[in-house]
Structures are given as structure tokens and as C-alpha cells.
């Protein structure tokens, strides 16, 4: 076999073999030369020179590679049945961290796919350097299917489309738009972190019956939470029965128990039975700015190439978020209080978690709840309707973290929740760093400790 780095056949070219759709074969040998051969459920692409194999049981293969680090794999391209051999050299085993977590998530899907969910359990990610690759001679592979789209072209055009966006709202909306138009994605979410709690809240959604804007995911929870915590794309290619990766099963009980009173959870909008899921962290410099999440009812919908494409899009989105100018340079402009008629609606604020209910219906909580409470208080006591981002940032009763887009993300969240759930209040942008609270009925404010 020829060296992987110099031969025309690269690991990247045969990544479809490493999706877990067809088992690979691994051969090793003991120090006395005794060969060992077995099937392998997961070969994970790490980078152009490395793969990782799942360590699930201490078996002969594992004993062999610890004593003699050379292994050879035979892998199969699922659409064509073409076969390749790879020579590997064992380097080390990782039992925590991004590589381990991305393999663990993927294995959960593979295990359910082959009916081994009670048997497959990842103990470690065995990292190997790929020293040679060859196509197995002979055979009669099937013709490769024609790809539905060029992911490289889609990525280029998506990055170009985001470049002209003026603010965070446009960036989020355009991102979902290009996912649908250029990548054929039918279901997507963008979540942003609350830096104080680490929880992620949904700010933009595509393709769900209820948008789920404001729904939350804890760090480490499901593919989204793991992607955020480990800052690595997490991808599942088959429907998993592993509850660790199920987000729709949550019932909000933990939240109801925390503060008492009515439930304060916005249901997560995800598909009930997703067959493919991919969550990609959005990094702004070294900081986690959000998570881009896509899912599908189709198995194997997102491949390594899709993961690369969306990671590139997320990197562009992160850089553009980081480069957004602070949208708070304009002085407040007073406006006349519009007339609001009819029976009053009750707006109740719970100080314990800044949750806000409108006529007994839960609307929002946390920072966005604190913002809304300030707006409606200023509206009812001072008659104000026009506000600026700057004054919200300076308001002592709004616990905002450091970064400019955190305020903007909360305003987007609030604006969208109001649009979806409240016919009485809405937020309209009136200029850069300025917005108006539109109130169509008298408000009766009630504060609860």
C-alpha cells in the first residue's frame, strides 16, 4: 500500500465508507503473529490523516493493538460496494472530550440501527494514524449515484448571502433561508447561549409547526447541548432510541419544580422521530455564540460533507456575529403614547425567574422577561413607547452578560415570542439600536415575588 499523504487516494475521498452504514473489517495480530479478524461497527473520520475506532469491549483486537499498534481495515463504500484497505497505527485512546462525544452520539444511532442498543457502549475512542490506503483490486463496483447538489457551491453562495446582513436578525433569518434554499434543509434551529446559566435558547426556527422560539436546551443535553459543551459538531445518521439524545421527550418538569406555579417551559419544537440530526457550534472567536441545528426524517441525510459545509457556514456566521457593530449609538427619541382601548390585560411578573405571563399564559422568562417587564413598566408609568438598546444595556434591573449580541438575541427572542403568542404587545424596530413597544390594550401590571 502507498502512503496516504502522497497517493492520489486520500482518506477524505473515501469518507462515505466511514458513515457506519456498512460494517468494516479489522485485522490485527498478536506479538507472536497470531492474526485476529473481526467486524467493526464504527470507523470515525477525524481528519485527513487520522481515524478513530470505537472501543466497546476489551477484546482480542484491543489486546493486540496495545501490544502491536499496526491494524488494517477493509471498508465498503455503501452506494457502490467498492472496497478499500487502510493501514493504521494506533496512537492513543480518548475517553472524554470532543472526539469521544461525537463518536458516542454517532454510535447511539448506529446501535439502534442494527438492533444493538443494549450492547454497544463506547468506552473509548481509539485514535489511529492512517499510513496507507488502497482500493481493493478487482471487483465490480456499482456506478456512483449522482449527487443531489454541490455542497461546495452551496457553501460559497450561502457565505456570500450572509455577508450583506446589517444586524443579528438579518443574519439569523438569512441563515435559515440559505439552509432551505441552497442545502435543501427542511428543519433547522439556531440557538444562542445565556452566558449566565450556559443554557441555549432558540432564536430562529425553520420548518416546525410551532417555532419553539424561546425553548431552551441545557448544556450537554441532546446533540445540541453536547455540541455546545464540547464545541464540536455532533451528528447522528440513524434514528437512535438512546434517550440521552432525545430532546422532544422533555416535559419541562424540572422547570416547573424549580419555581412553583404554572409551567414556564416553551416546548422544544424538534421532530418527534428524527432519523438524522446535526448540531454545529457557532464560534465567535473563542466564544460560543450559538448552535446551528438541522434534522431530517430521512436516514443518513447529513454526511461528513454536510457536516463540513455547515461547519463552514457556522464559522462564517460566527465571524459575522462577532463583527456586528453595537447597535446602540442613537439617543432615545420620545414618542407620543398611542391610545390603547378595551378591557385591560393582566401582565404578571415573577421576580424569582423574571418570567412574564399575559392573562395567565406563559410568555417569556430570564433576561428577555426582565426586558419586557421594564418596557411595560416604563410604558404604563411614564407613557413611553420608544426605547434604545443602550438604555437596556445600562438598566440595573436587566442582568445582561458582556457581549452586544446577547442583548440583540434577547430582543429578537422577545420580539418573536410576542409576535407568536401575544396579540396585545409587539416590538417594532424603528432604526439602528431603537425599537418601539406597540401596546393595543390597557395593561394591568402585577408583580409577584
Amino acid at each position, binding site marked *: 500500500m502507498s502512503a496516504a499523504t502522497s497517493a492520489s487516494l486520500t482518506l477524505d475521498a473515501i469518507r462515505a465508507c466511514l458513515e457506519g452504514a456498512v460494517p468494516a*473489517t479489522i*485485522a490485527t495480530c498478536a506479538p507472536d503473529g497470531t492474526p485476529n479478524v*473481526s467486524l467493526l461497527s464504527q470507523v470515525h473520520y477525524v481528519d485527513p490523516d487520522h481515524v478513530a475506532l470505537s472501543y466497546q*469491549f476489551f477484546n482480542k483486537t484491543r489486546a493486540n493493538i496495545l501490544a502491536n499498534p499496526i491494524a488494517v481495515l477493509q471498508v465498503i463504500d455503501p452506494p457502490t460496494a467498492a472496497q478499500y484497505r487502510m493501514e493504521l497505527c494506533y496512537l492513543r485512546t480518548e475517553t472524554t472530550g470532543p472526539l469521544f462525544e461525537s463518536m458516542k452520539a454517532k454510535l447511539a444511532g448506529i446501535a439502534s440501527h442494527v438492533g444493538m442498543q443494549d450492547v454497544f457502549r463506547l468506552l473509548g475512542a481509539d485514535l489511529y494514524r492512517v499510513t496507507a490506503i488502497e482500493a481493493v*483490486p478487482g471487483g465490480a463496483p456499482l456506478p456512483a449515484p449522482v449527487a443531489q447538489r454541490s455542497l461546495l457551491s452551496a457553501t460559497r453562495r450561502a457565505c456570500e448571502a450572509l455577508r450583506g446582513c446589517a444586524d443579528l436578525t438579518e443574519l439569523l433569518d438569512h441563515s435559515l433561508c440559505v439552509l432551505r434554499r441552497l442545502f435543501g434543509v427542511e428543519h433547522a434551529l439556531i440557538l444562542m447561549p445565556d452566558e449566565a446559566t450556559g443554557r441555549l435558547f432558540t432564536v430562529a426556527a425553520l420548518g416546525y409547526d410551532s417555532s419553539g422560539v424561546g425553548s431552551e436546551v441545557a448544556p450537554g443535553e441532546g446533540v445540541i447541548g453536547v455540541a455546545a459543551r464540547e464545541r464540536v459538531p455532533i451528528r447522528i445518521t440513524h434514528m437512535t432510541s438512546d434517550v440521552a439524545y432525545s430532546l422532544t421527550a422533555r416535559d419541562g418538569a424540572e422547570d416547573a419544580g424549580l419555581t412553583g406555579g404554572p409551567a414556564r417551559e416553551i416546548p422544544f419544537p424538534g421532530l418527534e422521530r428524527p432519523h438524522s440530526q446535526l448540531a454545529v457550534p457557532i464560534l465567535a472567536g473563542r466564544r460560543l455564540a450559538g448552535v446551528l441545528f438541522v434534522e431530517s426524517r430521512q436516514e443518513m441525510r447529513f454526511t461528513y460533507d454536510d457536516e463540513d459545509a455547515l461547519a463552514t457556514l457556522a464559522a462564517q456566521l460566527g465571524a459575522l456575529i462577532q463583527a456586528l457593530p453595537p447597535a446602540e449609538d442613537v439617543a432615545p427619541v420620545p414618542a407620543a403614547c398611542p391610545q390603547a382601548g378595551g378591557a385591560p390585560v393582566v401582565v404578571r411578573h415573577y421576580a424569582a425567574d423574571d418570567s412574564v405571563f399575559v392573562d395567565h399564559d406563559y410568555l417569556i422568562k430570564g433576561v428577555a422577561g426582565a426586558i419586557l417587564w421594564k418596557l411595560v413598566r416604563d410604558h404604563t408609568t411614564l407613557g413611553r413607547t420608544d426605547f434604545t438598546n443602550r438604555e437596556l444595556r445600562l438598566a440595573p434591573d436587566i442582568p445582561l452578560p458582556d457581549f452586544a449580541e446577547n442583548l440583540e438575541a434577547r430582543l429578537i427572542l422577545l420580539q418573536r415570542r410576542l409576535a407568536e403568542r401575544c396579540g396585545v404587545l409587539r416590538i417594532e424596530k424603528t432604526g439602528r439600536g431603537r425599537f418601539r413597544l406597540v401596546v393595543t390594550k390597557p395593561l394591568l401590571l402585577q408583580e409577584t415575588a
Partner: protein
Amino acid sequence: MANGGQRDGQRGGWPERLGPEGGRPARAGLSEAILTFLERGVSLVVSSSDRANRPRVGRALAVQVPADGTWIGVCLDRTANAALLAAVAETGRFALAATEPSTHLSIQLIGEDATVTVADAEATALAARHVDAFAAELALIGYGDAFTRALMAHDPATLAVVRFCPSRLYDQTPGPKAGTAVPP
């Protein structure tokens, strides 16, 4: 592709998982139950190692069990498995893992006395029949016939048979029992 449909019965240990013994006598040191399993539509993967202890890997086409033999034969495509066959010729080391995809039942047979021989007409016919059986087996878990036949495509004129007498048998069904010795 694969739909994840599985047969029951992948739990338990060898050889009881293979079902009742039939009337055929043991050959090549293997019980009839194991020999019957090897002749089913199982996946057959093989390995060897050369004098430098470098492992070799390949895919086999069929298992040949002569009626009066002290060895079993494993049919391989020479073109696809040149390095592996060279290693077998060099060291005599050989391992065969047979796995039933629909149940995950798996066994590995290891020998140190393997030799490479030319396939006879019976071995060539066996390979063709095994491809049919393997295609039927893979169809149970959702693989199309064209895929399996492409995977197992070979030139009947270039087949080799590795003959060996297994000296060690191991349960290789995924799970905590994987790697335990199996009585022949």
C-alpha cells in the same frame, strides 16, 4: 439501505445458539453445528500476518468442507487478496471470522497450518452458491441484491483456496462474551 430488522436469538453462548446437532460427523475438528453455520449465508472475513507481524485483511467467498477432510477450505479472489495470500504462504497463519448479519452471531477460527491451493471446480461452484445465500441473508436486513453481488464480485478463474485446520475457536458475537473460547 439496511433497515435494522434483526432476527431474535443473538443472546446466549456458543455452541448452543446454533441449535440441535444433526447427523453429520465432526470434520476438521469442528462440530456439525459449526460447519453448518459456516455454510450458511454468512459474512466471511479473513486475516493473516507476515513474518514482520504485519496484519493482512480480506473478504472470502465461501467455506469448503470436504466430506472426509481434516481441513476446511476458504475461497478467496486472488486479485483482491494478493498480499494476504502471500502472508499465508509465508507464515501459515490464518483467521476466519464468520458472522450472520441478521443475528450478529459470529465465530472466529484460527489456524497456524494454512496453505494456499488452487480452487477446484467444486470450490468455484461453492463460491457462486455462497454469493446467492449471502445476498438472501443481507436482503433480510435491507441490502439490495445489486449491492451484495457487487461486493462479492469475483473472477471464477482466479480463485484460491486457503486450507487450514482450526486450532482455536472464539465467540465473536458482539457483547461481553466476545473473545471467549468456543469448544469445537
